[in-house]
């Protein structure tokens, strides 16, 4: 309906002579991350995550009974996942109905979390992961995975490892860690990666844009460094939550 184009104009340079990006970061620097655990009362586990201007809410329900029952697996839980953006999370209003992009991302996010969960412990049940993007500024699928993994841990679901995720971009010929929307839009490539960090296993890998083999390998290394940082922040947030509970229990 609208003819009104809303986009942030491309600045003359995305990386300045001193290697600083439009928001002042260095090329290998993450955005500020804030993780809150257990923010929703009804969910079995939940996590609110801010990564730069990204704002993500993740919730986990389960393991729980599955309807209709014939979808259940006799030897393990099924994992279901929905990644969704609220209409006002982006500059141009998005229709509330799931887009093809959201359907694809729901699939790859599910497949990124699946290897980490001991699904075989809970036959005939479902574990449901809901990710709502409240505000999007580039890298929301990775932020969603990071938040969902924390919510899964908060729900007490037994896991092989957390899953942490980050994207690497290519901007003006340089690889940058954790690109924001502006860099996605005007950059040359984008590669989201998720891993079980302590196991060294990649559980999500996507890329678009053009990269040589060498760039691709360097991008992988850069992603791994970012993922380690993210992983530490996840563990810290979970530790704080349990310390808070411990304090509460000790007080009472």
């Amino acid at each position, binding site marked *: 309906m609208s003819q*009104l184009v809303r986009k942030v104009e491309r600045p003359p340079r995305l990386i300045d002579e001193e290697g600083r990006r439009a928001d002042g970061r260095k090329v290998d620097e993450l955005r500020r991350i804030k993780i809150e655990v257990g923010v929703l009362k009804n969910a079995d586990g939940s996590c609110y995550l801010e990564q730069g201007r990204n704002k993500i809410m993740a919730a986990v329900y389960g393991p729980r009974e599955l309807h209709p029952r014939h979808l259940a697996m006799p030897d393990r839980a099924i994992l279901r996942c929905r990644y969704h953006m609220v209409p*006002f999370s982006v500059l141009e*209003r998005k229709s509330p109905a799931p887009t093809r992009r959201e359907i694809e991302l729901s699939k790859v996010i599910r497949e990124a979390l699946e290897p980490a969960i001991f699904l075989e412990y809970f036959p005939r049940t479902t574990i449901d992961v*809901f990710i709502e993007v409240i505000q999007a500024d580039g890298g929301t699928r990775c932020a969603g995975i990071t938040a969902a993994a924390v919510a899964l841990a908060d729900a007490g679901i037994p896991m092989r490892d957390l899953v942490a995720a980050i994207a690497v971009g290519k901007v003006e010929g340089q690889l940058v860690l954790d690109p924001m929307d502006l860099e996605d839009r005007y950059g040359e490539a984008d590669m989201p990666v998720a891993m079980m960090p302590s196991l060294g296993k990649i559980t999500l890998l996507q890329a678009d844009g053009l990269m040589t083999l060498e760039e691709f390998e360097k991008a992988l290394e850069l992603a791994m460094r970012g993922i380690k940082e993210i992983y530490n922040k996840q563990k810290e947030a979970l530790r704080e939550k349990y310390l808070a509970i411990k304090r509460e229990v000790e007080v009472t």
Partner: protein
Amino acid sequence: MPRSEEIIPKIKRQQIMSMLAKGERLDGRRLDEYRPISIELGVVEKAEGSAMVRLGNTISIAGVKVELGKPYPDTPDEGAFIVNAEFLPLASPTFEPGPPDESAIEVARVVDRGIRSSGAIDLKKLCILPGEKVWVVYIDVYVLNHDGNMMDASGLATIAALLIAKMPKVAVKEGKVTILDEWVPLPVVNRPVPVTMAKIGEKIVVDPSLDEELVMDCRITVTIDESDRICAVQKGIGGSLTVDDVKYASKLAVEKAKEIRKALPPLPSIEDVEWIVKEGQ
């Protein structure tokens, strides 16, 4: 309504009713007392306006976007607004993904009626080219956690988000519309406040919690405007009300709305604001 909510916990109902007989509620509130209300403004910077409302543990977030569009044929000189409400599956174990069900549609429509009947948005100011181009205001409300009274949480989030919304000025020259890089408030001129009450047995309580909703006989929402006028009423849920119930509920609503309105941002000052600059005419 989702299935598991249908199984009315009979023991809980008796417990709630015997407390109500003594003028008490499960969570210690008086019958005419709201849970703590928190309104966080501007939580989504990319939206034109946004607000997150917490009513106890119930959380609703509303976001406002404006887009250029065509007017409705029967109001060629007015902008338009559309309210969409969704109950997210992360808000409750009983909510499922999918398009809004009848309960979410009801919330959207009651919120819409409050805004519309009170003339909260001055739609004439949103007309750019009569019959051809107007602003359309999209209001999306999402429930993030459901602990009862999603109606008031959603209605408050909506009006709060509208009150702080900023939209771009446009210039019109020879029928061509240009978006300017200057931001003005949305023309909001009234602050309707919905007040929802539940009837449980013979008692009426304000701002029902989820526990109370699960055992209530009937629900009534009365939306009150800036001048203490009723601008929308909605009875909900099977069950019935007496005429006296309705009279009591409407008076209580006027009183409560006045209190709650204090937590809202003020009306934007729009006296000297120009939304559409008509050039060379």
